[in-house]
């Protein structure tokens, strides 16, 4: 993570148009990609729960989506900062990615509301799993919906011809991406461990009382 930040500031060349503010790209985009990845992982675990059954998938799906929402919120914040720095406004509806993240953020906040207002048990696990699956289908659908209202401002870096970045920029991007993914993975394991410990403790307490 430290290496990624160092590279973002010292190794990568400055963007000709946007100057120093462009450096937030090395944090913003990896976080966004990681958030998508977390949502995808959550939906995959949800699918496994519906398909195979097994309580551990429920917890794994929940923790993955929790991480996704945290990274999603960070994406909104960094995206907003970047928008302020390069377009001069804190928020723009012209930026597809940011609007999509806002929709997803609302959707997954509702996921937590749903989860916390259902009684614990297999039914809650299955309802949350179904909702998580809806989320992963909603991502491309709302992307398409937002794309339908054309945009001009947001820079499209990844086109069909591949990334349009110089070598050192791309290297920095890869390192930051790796660092953020690693961070997400560690957080995911830590939270999972904590939640499992909680469950074990509760069981023990009930066994003794």
């Amino acid at each position: 993570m430290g290496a990624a930040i160092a590279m973002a500031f010292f190794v990568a060349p400055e963007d000709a148009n946007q100057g120093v503010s462009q450096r937030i790209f090395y944090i913003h985009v990896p976080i966004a990609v990681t958030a998508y990845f977390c949502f995808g992982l959550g939906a995959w675990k949800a699918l496994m729960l519906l398909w195979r059954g097994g309580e551990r998938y429920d917890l794994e799906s929940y923790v993955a989506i929790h991480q996704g929402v945290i990274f999603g919120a960070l994406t909104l914040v960094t995206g907003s900062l970047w928008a302020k720095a390069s377009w001069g406004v804190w928020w723009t509806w012209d930026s597809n990615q940011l609007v999509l993240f806002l929709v997803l953020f609302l959707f997954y906040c509702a996921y937590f509301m749903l989860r916390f207002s259902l009684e614990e048990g297999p039914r809650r696990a299955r309802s949350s799993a179904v909702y998580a699956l809806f989320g992963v289908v909603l991502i491309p659908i709302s992307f398409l919906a937002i794309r339908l209202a054309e945009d001009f401002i947001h820079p499209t870096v990844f086109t069909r011809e591949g990334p349009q970045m110089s070598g050192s920029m791309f290297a920095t991007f890869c390192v930051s991406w790796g660092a953020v993914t690693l961070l997400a993975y560690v957080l995911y394991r830590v939270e999972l461990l904590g939640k499992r410990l909680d469950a074990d403790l509760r069981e023990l307490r009930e066994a003794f009382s």
Partner: protein
Amino acid sequence: MTYAADVAALARKDLKVELRARDTLPAMLLFVLSTLVVFRFALPDQTNDDAAYGLLWVAIVFTALLGLARAWVPEQEHGVLDGLVLAPCDRSAIWLGKSIATLAFLLGAQIVALPAFALFFAPLDLAAIAGVLLADVGICAVGSLLAAMAAASRSRELLLPLLVLPLSIPLVVGGVGAAISPHADRFLLFLVLYDAVFAVLSWASFEYVVTE
């Protein structure tokens, strides 16, 4: 064939309950009309028609929410849902029957609301009406499933709008686009895609939501 018969029987049951009790459709009608009147005063005088189309969609989505919030109430009150789940029919038939009944209520409300909108605000062309119909299908399909989820939770009426609104954003994009864009066909096609994808998903996953 029996599947279709099950679905028809379930939808007929809902319509019959509504005919005897009359507690959903009149409320939806009154709600959508009063919303339109409120919008008349919320809009400044020189607003162009495009803004009015946007408000029509707000009215449609909230009317649908009103209908969906009532959708599973009869089942909840008398424990009918447990009986239906135990009945020897495919569980997805319950979802399909409920979606059709909700769609019927929503269409009933719109038969009055759309002419009223055309009268008060701006004319509606064929593409706009097609957009409304396609979005109705989508919102009823997704909404019936989410309403069943919300009905099982502690905070029923509170939860449903939170679950439905993020999912209905693409429908609003499609519907408004169909009404105001010169490329209406693109938006209608998108609505068809949405309906197909989410109908299949709801159909396949309903069983998991209602079984214990």
